[in-house]
């Protein structure tokens, strides 16, 4: 019964960036505004080819900066357009101010991020410092494991962002080079199936200053003021509403993921968390993005050797699926959280903070340690992942944590 609803698909050889561009092409996007930055550039290059060849009904704006790229997407979105952009690293950092304005204006812009290290020193290679630094900007963040999931996530992102209970911008994060530049087989849905799935953008009705109920957008027929100044008597309520939308996004991400699974035949855990051999796991790691592929290979080996190892891949980092993390990791003895970024002066990396924090409320808590890895594009291999699990086995046996924060593959 499940399989009957699955659409016929063709397999294309695409790298992660091309998978993004192909998905955006199918999503009936009205405006794409972008600025080049490695390793994201291929996304907008491919997309501009679609525009040049008349394959899409999309206005493409090559702005003079990332700040203006996101501004143009935001303004287009508030005018009623479905808008998309892509960035990475320094480009995302330059957008920082506008990330908050975009979520604050409740503009459902979708952005792909080819995760890349932040300068200095200048480094074009992959890590997740760029998006981790924006985790409080009010954007939904979805991290993909492979090019297939990149394609699927972009399509889902428009539905999630534009959902009337959510109305928040969304980032789809793909590891720079590991995903952005690696070619994989990607099954793509027919254009009309995607078009039907994403649908035409709907607008919630709001009360205008003239006392009329009108769609929330800049419309000469129904003038409204968007982006006003709100002082201490109102500002706080605006922010609380954003948090409420994030909470609601947890369920929407799951629903959209499940609905998409029915037409594509592909699913990623429950859409929020991808649990791998966690039911009876005694030791487990937690990671985001493409590293999960390497970790899964190690888990397979360990399972074959009789070690009860597992993995929790966090797909939705914002909103953080706290209950799911508690449920899946609650019975594990030792958890190793892998961070591909640093929170200087904090106690470990951002993912470590969040996961350990989520587990704190449990009566019986696993021991949780942090492994920081892969910064600036440094390779992380099977041997290193194996060493992490060996370390976790020792922690589980000794029931004692000697060093809560460790660095993987670092010369010290």
């Amino acid at each position, binding site marked *: 019964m499940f399989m009957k609803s699955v659409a016929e698909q063709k397999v294309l050889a695409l790298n992660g960036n091309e998978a993004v561009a192909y998905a955006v092409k199918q999503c009936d996007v*009205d*405006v794409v*505004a972008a600025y080049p930055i490695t390793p994201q550039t291929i996304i907008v290059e491919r997309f501009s080819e679609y525009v040049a060849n008349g394959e899409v*009904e*999309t*206005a493409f*704006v*090559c*702005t*003079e*900066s990332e*700040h*203006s790229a996101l*501004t*143009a*997407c*935001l*303004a*287009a*979105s*508030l*005018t*009623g*357009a479905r*808008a998309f952009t892509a960035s990475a690293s320094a480009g995302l950092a330059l957008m920082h*101010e*506008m990330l908050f*304005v975009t979520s604050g*204006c409740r503009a459902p812009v979708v952005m792909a991020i080819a995760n890349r290290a932040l300068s200095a020193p200048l480094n074009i290679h992959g890590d997740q410092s760029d998006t981790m630094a924006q985790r409080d900007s009010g954007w939904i963040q979805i991290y993909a494991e492979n090019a297939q999931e990149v394609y699927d996530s972009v399509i889902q992102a428009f539905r999630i962002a534009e959902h009337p209970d959510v109305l928040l911008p969304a980032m789809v994060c793909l590891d720079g080079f590991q995903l952005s530049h690696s070619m994989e087989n990607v099954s793509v849905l027919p254009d009309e199936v995607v078009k039907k799935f994403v649908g*035409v953008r709907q607008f919630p009705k709001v009360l205008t*200053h*003239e006392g009329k109920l009108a769609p929330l957008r*800049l*419309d*000469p*027929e*129904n*003038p*409204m*003021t*968007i*982006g*006003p*100044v*709100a*002082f201490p008597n*109102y500002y706080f309520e605006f922010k609380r509403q954003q948090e409420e939308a994030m909470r609601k996004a947890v369920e929407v991400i799951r629903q959209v993921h499940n609905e998409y699974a029915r037409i594509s035949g592909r699913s990623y855990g429950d859409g929020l968390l991808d649990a791998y051999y966690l039911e009876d796991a005694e030791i487990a790691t937690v990671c985001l993005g493409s590293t999960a592929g390497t970790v899964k290979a190690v888990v397979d080996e360990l399972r074959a050797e009789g070690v009860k190892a597992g993995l929790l891949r966090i797909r939705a980092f914002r909103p953080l699926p706290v209950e799911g993390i508690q449920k899946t990791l609650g019975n594990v003895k030792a958890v190793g959280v892998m961070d591909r970024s640093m929170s200087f002066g904090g106690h470990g990396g951002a993912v470590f903070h969040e996961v350990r924090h989520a587990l704190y409320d449990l009566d019986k808590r696993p021991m949780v340690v942090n492994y920081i890895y892969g910064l600036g594009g440094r390779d992380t291999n099977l041997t290193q992942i194996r060493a992490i699990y060996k370390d976790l086995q020792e922690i589980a046996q000794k029931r004692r944590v000697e060093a809560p924060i460790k660095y993987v593959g670092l010369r010290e």
Partner: protein
Amino acid sequence: MQTEEWKFTAKDIVEKPDLFMSGHRACAGCAPATVMRLILKAVRGPTIVTVATGCMEVVSTTYPYTSWNAPWLHTAFENAAANASGIETAIKILRKKGRIKDQHVDVIAIAGDGGTYDIGIQALSGAVERGHDFLFVLYDNEAYMNTGIQRSGGTPLGAATTTSPAGEVIPGKLEPKKPIADIMVAHEIPYVATASPYYWRDLIIKVRKGLEVEGPAFLHVLAPCPRGWRSDPSKSIELSRLAVETCVFPLWECINGEYQLSAPSKVIAMAPQKKKPVKEYLAVQGRFRHLFTPKYEKLVDEIQRITDLRWQKLLKKCGLT
């Protein structure tokens, strides 16, 4: 391209409904607020307005109130032109796809001198280079008035501000205004003009021309600020006249690269004896008070020299020398 007959007599203007409404929180004597009202009197049909962070944004949209009876967007300080490019692009594609009513929509971006000369110039330069069809209006009150009178690239030579104070050894701002309108002309856009609210009809016509032209248009409006200029709140409009009469702020248009003086400045070009000394303009503003002390009085001559030099350059560009 003129799309409808201009009806800009005083009677027409009074009868036309305001899109910038009263009840805003601007200071007494605020010329920028008058400028907003005049700009909106010039619209010819469906119009979307976007405003950079600054006085005119803050005084007019304190939630849950608004002074704008036009669709209106503010997002940040440095990006009014980028807002306009997003709005204009969206309108075009949504019309093409049949998602919105198939009608032309004018887009006006408004920013102060900080949001234009300084932090906003990158987005402005980029948006006009891309050729978006919008009008950018700079209301120039010659400093960051909203944050408390700090100097900007538009602050004139000798003016005291809170970050270019007149001290024992430094006589206020040491640099003349950046020639922003000429910089916009250098972008080879179809329409650039300067305007002053004293000459209200000239201002309204220039807004309309900027909307009617296809492609980017730029209008530089001098807008006195009594708080920052330390001037009598009842004299703001008079000051905006004096700036023109002294040639501190001449009125001109540049249509497709051709400069021409507007009537109030042309009168002075034709009869140079009508050109008033800058001293008259400076003397009624507290921000120049220190220039009338023996220590710094030579700077008045320097301001006169630079004003004359710029005026001569302008006359040459207009083919009047």
